[in-house]
């Protein structure tokens, strides 16, 4: 009897008595990393129907058609198909937005629409994912360059504009989920108000309160309205005496990115 398995994302039928090592020996005998259903294994295991096996030779840069599938080898099975079809808009590419974009690009979110009007300047570098060489460059262009280095197979659309009531709908009309990642609280409220009024069914993942170095665990993600999720401690405002720094900003960015992933996968609760 045969079972259906996927090896490096190619579907095939193998004998029901086959093991991972047997498949490796037949298909890629120099592979030294074997990942079964998202988890690396050291010892041989009998294959079950619908298993997914990834065979990798450490350090080898695979051919283009294989690379995309190998990049998802550590995903939980079933995630890749959904994230690949997702379209996510990110408003603001500072400490939150640049980090969220990189997290979503790494997992292969199929389309990102990135919007920011500003250029990279030196005080951004304590928390934003840019390099010294990007100083003076629009954040949209700098981030697009970085994302192409991380994941060349996703689509990245950039808009270097100041977002307000008049252009939010046009920028984010064609999205599944929108991330609010601004610095300015008026812009945060404007984006959320405009999106929820214009597209009431569209989830928004926003942030409020992530400055300083107060406890990690004060940062929460809450579902505050039917389609509005807010990450942060709600009170730590960036202000004289309370700066914005990578560690806590990254905690919040991680919360927002994971909420986006949860929504893509149909999980509507926090």
């Amino acid at each position, binding site marked *: 009897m045969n079972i259906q398995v996927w090896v490096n994302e190619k579907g095939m039928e193998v004998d029901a008595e086959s093991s991972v090592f047997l498949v490796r020996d037949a298909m890629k005998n120099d592979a030294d990393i074997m990942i079964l259903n998202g988890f690396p294994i050291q010892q041989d295991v009998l294959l079950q129907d619908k298993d997914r096996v990834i065979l990798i030779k450490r350090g080898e840069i695979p051919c283009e058609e294989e690379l995309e599938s190998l990049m998802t080898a550590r995903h939980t099975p079933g995630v890749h198909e959904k994230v690949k079809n997702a379209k996510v808009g990110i408003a603001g590419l500072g400490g939150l937005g640049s980090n969220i974009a990189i997290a979503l690009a790494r997992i292969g979110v199929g389309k990102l629409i990135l919007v920011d009007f500003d250029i990279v300047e030196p005080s951004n570098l304590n928390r934003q994912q840019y390099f010294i060489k990007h100083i003076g460059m629009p954040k949209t262009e700098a981030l697009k360059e970085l994302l192409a280095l991380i994941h060349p197979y996703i689509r990245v659309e950039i808009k270097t504009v100041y977002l307000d009531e008049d252009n939010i709908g046009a920028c984010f009309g064609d999205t599944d989920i929108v991330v609010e990642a601004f*610095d300015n609280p008026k812009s*945060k409220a404007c984006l959320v108000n405009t999106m929820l009024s214009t597209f009431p069914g569209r989830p928004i993942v926003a*942030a409020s309160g992530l400055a300083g170095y107060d406890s990690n665990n004060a940062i929460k993600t809450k579902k505050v*309205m039917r389609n509005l999720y807010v990450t942060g401690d*709600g009170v730590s405002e960036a202000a004289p005496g309370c700066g914005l720094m990578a560690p806590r*900003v990254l905690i919040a960015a991680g919360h927002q990115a994971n909420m986006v992933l949860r929504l893509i996968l149909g999980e509507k609760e926090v």
Partner: protein
Amino acid sequence: MLVNGKEMQFDEAITIEALLIQLKLNEDRVVVEVNRQIIEKSKYGSTYLNSDDRVEIVSFVGGG
């Protein structure tokens, strides 16, 4: 009325604008939902709240 899940009572009808002032919230930084309906900022002054309304207010602080 319920404001962010907490019961609040007022002696007379109150607008969203007046409620925000009472809660010391800046109207430029908030999102207000009444009975699951987003209210536009331009209508805060003319929208009166009823005693059986459910009001959700999110107020943003800066930083990102």
